[in-house]
Structures are given as structure tokens and as C-alpha cells.
């Protein structure tokens, strides 16, 4: 199973032997990859069709609705709680973000950047809701109900007193582009943040 670009970044940030929780773990590719480095944990997935994929990937997977929070997990019971490409489909991203840093010593959140210039152009010039590779659904059928830009996300972290320990903003090709480095909120397609509750420092 191959990893998406955001999953490659996340994998690089997690040290061998860590204990992780992957929220919305999809087909289990990331956890399967991490297991080879003695990184253990659980995936949470609600989608029926992806659930069997997770079992085939040999990971421990739990059927759970992230909108209900993570009450089954104790405070600080994981080294990392991962939420990758799922934040935008959550009913209350702010609530889940608090849950992530409650349950995890560190949280890793990856999301599609709605501030990317192509999104802005589609809305500003085309007058239509943006449809892109990261956000392929039309507005009326999309599960992505809470889209945000990189600036929006950083503001949410600040208002919840989360420290950003690391972040990586890339485009799908993962090309090192000058544009992404200079104006990430305009040229970055995928953002990944490593955060921590300020009291945890």
C-alpha cells in the first residue's frame, strides 16, 4: 500500500516504538506502514467499505463516529493522535481538536488548504464553489462541510492555546516550490501540523 503525501510527512514525524491513534484511518495504509517500525495503536473508521481494507492491512480498527468524540480513550493515552484529510468532514472541528490534544500527547492534523490559489480563482472569477483534486465533490454532495485555510487553522490553534511544533505545507507533487515557501496559504495544497497543548510543554 502506498502512502499519500501527507501520510509520508506524518510517518517521518513519528519516532519508532510510539503509540498512535489514527482518526479516520481509511484503508489502514498509514498504520500498516507504521507497524513495520514497531509503532502500535488503533485506527478509527466509520466507512463500511474501508473497514475490511483495514483488517486486510492487519491493523486494529474500531468502528467509531468521530463526531461523538473520543470518550473511550483516557487522557494522554497516546504519543500521537493523527487526523489526516478528515478535519474538513467533522461536524465540530474545534471540539475534535480539543479531544485530540486531550487523548494524545501530541496531535498531527493534515487538511486540504482551501486558501490555495485555484480555489480562490474558482470562486472569485468563476463564481462557483471550488472543485479540486483534494476536494473533488460538488457543494451539495460533499462530505467536506468545514473547509479552512492555513491561516484559519493557525488561528484555531492559537485560540485553543495549542503550540505548533512543526508544520509542512506542500503541493500534491511534493515539489519544492518557491511559491509554497514564500506564500504557503496561496500555493500550498496540503497542510500538515504537529501541535501540542500549551500545558504539556
Amino acid at each position, binding site marked *: 500500500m502506498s502512502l499519500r503525501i501527507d501520510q509520508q510527512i506524518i510517518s517521518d514525524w513519528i519516532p519508532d516504538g510510539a503509540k498512535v491513534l489514527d482518526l479516520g484511518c481509511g484503508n489502514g495504509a498509514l498504520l500498516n506502514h507504521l507497524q513495520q517500525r514497531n509503532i502500535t495503536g488503533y485506527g478509527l473508521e466509520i466507512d463500511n467499505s474501508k*473497514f475490511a481494507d483495514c483488517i*486486510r492491512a492487519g491493523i486494529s480498527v474500531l*468502528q467509531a463516529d468521530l463526531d461523538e468524540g473520543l470518550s473511550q480513550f483516557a487522557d494522554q493515552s497516546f504519543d500521537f493522535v493523527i487526523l489526516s484529510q478528515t478535519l474538513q468532514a467533522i461536524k465540530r472541528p474545534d471540539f475534535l481538536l480539543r479531544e485530540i490534544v486531550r487523548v494524545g500527547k501530541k496531535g498531527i492534523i493534515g487538511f486540504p488548504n482551501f486558501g490555495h490559489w485555484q480555489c480562490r480563482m474558482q470562486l472569485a472569477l468563476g463564481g462557483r464553489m471550488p472543485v479540486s483534486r483534494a476536494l473533488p465533490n460538488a457543494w451539495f454532495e460533499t462530505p467536506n462541510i468545514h473547509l479552512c485555510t492555513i491561516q484559519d487553522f493557525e488561528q484555531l490553534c492559537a485560540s485553543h492555546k495549542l503550540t505548533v511544533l512543526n508544520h509542512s505545507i506542500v503541493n500534491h507533487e511534493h515539489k519544492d516550490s518557491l511559491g509554497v515557501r514564500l506564500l504557503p496559504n496561496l500555493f500550498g495544497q496540503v497542510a500538515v501540523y504537529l501541535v501540542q497543548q500549551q500545558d504539556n510543554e
Partner: protein
Amino acid sequence: MPETIPADSVGLVSPSTLHVDAPLKLDCGRTLSSYDLVYETYGELNADHSNAVLICHALSGDHHAAGYHTMEDRKPGWWDSAIGPGKAIDTNRFFVVCPNNLGGCKGSSGPNTINPDNGELYGPDFPIVTVPDWVRSQAVLADKLGIKQWAAVIGGSLGGMQALQWAISLPERVRHTVIIAAAPKLSAQNIAFNEVARTAIKSDPDFHDGHYMRFNTLPRQGLGLARMLGHITYLSDEAMGQKFGRELRSGAIQYGYDVEFQIESYLRYQSTSFVERFDANTYLLMTKALDYFDPAKEFDDDLTRTVAHIEAKALVMSFTSDWRFSPMRSREIVNAMLAAGKPVTYAEIEAHQGHDAFLMPIPRYLDIFGTYMRQIATEVTA
């Protein structure tokens, strides 16, 4: 009756009997000096004996889990939907063992068998056995079959409780535990239903304090009532509504007390067919084993500490419409496993069939079940 045996059936099978002469000390303090265990097996044990799977049956189940005994059988074994070549529990890969529990009434030592100590029928004097007792007796069977570790111990309902108990009692002997539609212990409501069933049996004038065989009779009324009540708790309101609704047998209300609604007719059929095939003393015993099941009791009622001993990986499954052992009860097991940091996979299956769903060919259920079993097969090179 199968005209021809279906390709995905284990086919014609026959039970075996293990006679054990070594005494078995029971939780109740009594000892069985010797006992019989009747069991069936399907599939082939592989060279390193690593592909064996133990099936644990529920309250009214037995050792005949799959296939047919004769070509005249009306129905296959009770879990034929899940056991067979190419099925979720694939007999091309696994060696499947299903014993009749001690205290049962289908051939293993129980109330309807002869007490070897005095040559008389046990009847109500058969000691009450517990879920841990069953695990101990099944471990003797495993030894006899040359199975050091089960690739999986699998069960639904009371069978799921046995699968959990196996992983707790003998951690090194269980590679995977598959716990379906179960609970870590019974609730007061669960015990209350069991007590109504027991009262129905015991208050039947033909019960004779459990010695009905001496009087050449059966507590048909009482056991039938117990089965009717049980059956209501195995189905969901929705499933009953879909199957029977308010349909009348004769099409019109008769203003009388005879059977009028189809559901009444169905319950009566269930009860009369059950009393012919099941022993009342066994029914009492099985409900007691359910009531007493509480593995956390030994660990200060701390389920997390209880499951901390488990070495097996667990698959836990529940069904949305099951109100006898609801998904919440399965999640208690799952959450304890999570708190103990144990590998566990949990699926909540959308199903309207109620508790009985675990016996039904529900596509998503069997898909997840089968995928998990195939994953086990790759581990044990089955």
C-alpha cells in the same frame, strides 16, 4: 432435507465422543469423577497443529454447528451460515472443533446422562457448571486433539463469553478471540429474564423438582414458556414487525382466546418444537452459567485489569438492533481492551434482526468476519 449437499457445506458429518477419566474440579466445589464431551470437527488439522479453531455454542446450541448428519435432515447445523468451504470460517483453511458444553443435553455429560458414580440419571443433581468450567473441560479436549494453541476461539452470545473467558483463563492457548453479540457480564434485566424462564419451568406441575424423567413426563408447558420468552428477547421489535406485523391467521378477529395473530402461532410453534429437542434441567443450568458469568469479579470488578492478562488479539462484533446484549455491552469489552492497550478490532453491524443476527447470513457481518479469519489464516499458514 438437502436433495444434494451444497458445494459450500461441510457435507455429511458425524460427532465423536471424548471420554475423560481424570476428575474435573468445578467452581461450585463439586468434582466430576469422569465425563464425556461430544464434539464435531470439520476440515483438516495442519502439520504444525496451528490452524485449529474452537467454536463455542450459546444457550440452546450444541456440537452440531455445520453440515448434515443424514440426507434426511431438515436443516444443517446451527452455524452453517458461517462454517464451510469458502465461508467466513473456511474449512479449507481451518480445522474447526465444536464441542457440546458440559451440562448440555446433546450427548456431553449433563442432566440427561447417567451419573457414573451411582448408575442413575443425573437429572437436577448434575452440578451447576460455569463458563470457566467449560474452558477447563474444553482445554482437556484440546490436549487430546494435540492443539496447544487455538488459532481462534469463536462464539456468539454465551459462546462469545466463553471466547472471552478462554483468552482470560488460558492466555497462551488463544491466538485470536472472536467475541460476537456478547457482554462482560449480565445486567439485572438479563438476569431477570432468565429468572422468569426458570420460574416458568420450575412451576410446571410436570417438573417434579427436576425429576420429570422418573415420572415419564416433561415440563412441556414451562420449558415452552421459557423458550417463548427467550425468543422474544432474541428478536427486535422491527424484525418481528417485518416478519409478522399484525397479520391474522384467519384474516379476521374472532373475539376469543385462541391463537389469532401470526406472532402467537409462531411463538407456539417455537415452544412446542423446542421442548421435544431440549432438556429443561439443561435450560436451567445454562441460564445459571449466564447469570454467574463475571470474569472481572476476581479482579476487584476491574475489567481492564481482567483483560490485561489476554495475549490474544480480539475481534468484537455487535448488532445495532440487539437489545439482549446491545452494542453498548460489547463496547464495555472493547473499552477495557483499549485501556489495557490490547489489540482489538470492533465492528458494529447495522442489522434489524436483533440478538439472533449473529446466526444470520448478513453480508457485511460475514464479510468482516471472513476478512478477519483470512487474516488469521495468513498468520498460521493455514
